[in-house]
């Protein structure tokens, strides 16, 4: 290692130059928040991750919408046996609504699997590698650490899973049907599926705080998702609590159909549980030894 010696005068000049810098903002819960959030958002938007995420979700979500709007009708015209399948694919809805239903379904299923996989490592990896201990040896609050993980994942899901594929889906619908999907109801529906994603992101962040390995985090999150889907046939009451029909609710909201009590409860429960998960994660992370 080369250690350079500087005369004291030079050091004093450098120190003086630093006087142009101000102490970082934020204290209490918000100490280090801006810097942590900048780093987390940078991981999503300033690395190649954005490109991969964009490609993955455009192919998965908008690919299915395109399949429905462009490929199935062509196949049905070539192979008449496929005609009933092509008609049933829209669920008896006009093509513009049927396509949006496919978008909501894909965000609800593939998007949920995606956010679980993307968020599962956020806390575990930092705890295991020691980077959490390093970061939190700086003036950064533990609450800010958790909140920025949450916000960056929500931001990533919003942009790459909900907003951009949604925009493309609307374009696809217009190209195929020359019909404009009403924007405000569509956004309200997209908000509902986004809420489902927020629920799972919050759950996975909490599990990442509670457990030391990835197994339980993935296992419990997928158990809630797939187990809930199976269980709802036997115990439909869980639909009051778990966000298992959010794609259907999104479509109803978009169509302006009044929601039954069970679905209203499901939306409220998803919001309330997300907040509870994060509050528990914040409280528990305060006491974790790094």
């Amino acid at each position, binding site marked *: *290692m*080369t*250690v*350079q*010696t500087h005369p004291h005068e030079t050091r004093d000049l*450098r*120190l003086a*130059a*630093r006087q*142009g*810098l*101000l*102490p*970082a*903002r934020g*204290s*209490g819960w918000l*100490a*280090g928040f*801006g*810097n942590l959030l*900048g*780093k987390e958002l940078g991981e999503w938007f300033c*690395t190649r991750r954005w490109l991969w995420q964009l490609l993955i979700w455009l192919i998965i979500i908008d690919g299915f919408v395109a399949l429905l709007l462009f490929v199935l009708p062509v196949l049905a015209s070539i192979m008449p046996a496929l005609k009933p399948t092509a008609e049933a694919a829209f669920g008896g809805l006009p093509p513009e609504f049927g396509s949006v239903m496919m978008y909501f379904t894909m965000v609800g299923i593939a998007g949920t699997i995606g956010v679980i996989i993307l968020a599962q490592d956020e806390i575990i990896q930092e705890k295991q*590698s*020691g*980077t959490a*201990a*390093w970061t*939190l*040896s*700086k*003036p*950064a*609050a533990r609450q800010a650490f958790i909140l920025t993980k949450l916000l960056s994942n929500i931001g990533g899901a919003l942009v790459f899973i909900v907003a951009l594929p949604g925009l493309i889906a609307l374009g696809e619908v217009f190209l195929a049907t020359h019909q404009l999907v009403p924007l405000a109801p569509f956004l309200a529906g997209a908000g509902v599926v986004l809420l489902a994603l927020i629920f799972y992101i919050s759950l996975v962040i909490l599990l990442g705080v509670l457990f030391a390995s990835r197994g339980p985090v993935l296992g419990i999150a997928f158990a809630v998702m797939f187990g809930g889907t199976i269980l709802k046939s036997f115990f439909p009451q869980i639909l009051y609590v778990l966000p298992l029909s959010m794609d259907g609710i999104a479509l109803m909201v978009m169509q302006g159909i009044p929601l039954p009590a069970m679905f209203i409860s499901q939306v409220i429960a998803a919001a309330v549980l997300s907040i509870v998960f994060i509050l528990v994660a914040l409280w528990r992370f305060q*006491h974790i*030894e*790094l």
Partner: protein
Amino acid sequence: MDTPYNPVIETHNLSKAYKEVQALQDLNLTVKEHSIFGFLGPNGAGKTTTIKILLGLIQPSGGRATIFGQDVQRNSVEIRKRTGYLAQDPRYYEHLTARQILVYTARFFYRGPKDLIEACVQEMLELVGLEDKADRPLRGFSGGERQRLGIAQAQVNYPDLLILDEPAASLDPMGRHDVLEVMEKLRKYTTIFYSTHILEDVQRVSDTVAILNRGKLIAEAPISELLAGDGCSAIYDVTLKSETAESITDAQGRVSGQPWVQNLSMAADDGLTRWQISVSDDAAAEDLLLRLILEDRSLKVKHFGRKTYNLEEVFLELVGKENSK
């Protein structure tokens, strides 16, 4: 306002237990401002546990600690604003470059124009000699380079307190030398609290030393006191020359007969006789030992002095005593 000898770190009966393991037991330490405080101990002695408690990364089971007079649990963020820390096995985000790591670190402390932040980072890169590797991703860095980066990120805010956990452990002799040089340079600006098991390094740069064993503090003193053997039994080295063996035997009888002499070991070498006399009363030995020997005027004393220890001897004796309890 701080005076030159204000305590920077104080711990009061600080303890930490993990289920059945007592990692730290009633630790009472005082680290004074602008000192280089060596925190010594074998592996598993509780050094890293103490450091992590001081940084708020883990919580004590009992007792309390303050840094800059602030409680480490209640005011951890405020304390960390004035502290730099290098972990024993520093881990950073592997995909970032050294420069990005330092910018990220600096932004926890400063806000302002980007070029000033960059200048501050450049200065740190120069301090540790990483300018030419600053823009390479960290995953290709060697252990020594990571350690240098560790020192740079710990120093980026010009901390009032620098906490270094085994800063030279993974370095080659040259790297160790450089790290110690940086520490000596920084002494006038900051207080350095560092843990290590490399005794040679401690002896070279520390002014105060604490020795920890099995979670217990077994010695804390300025290094000069420890090396004088204040923590150990006093031993006097005497080298004699005599024409006759009887003179030596008589002198040995006179000395051994004193109640404060615990042991006298003798070795002959090249016409000289060497004694090592272990005493229980240092004051009596200082006053009487030489006189007793010189009662026989035919004896020539070639060397007489209290044995000075090196840190390794002090450490081994203290830890050995503690382990045998």
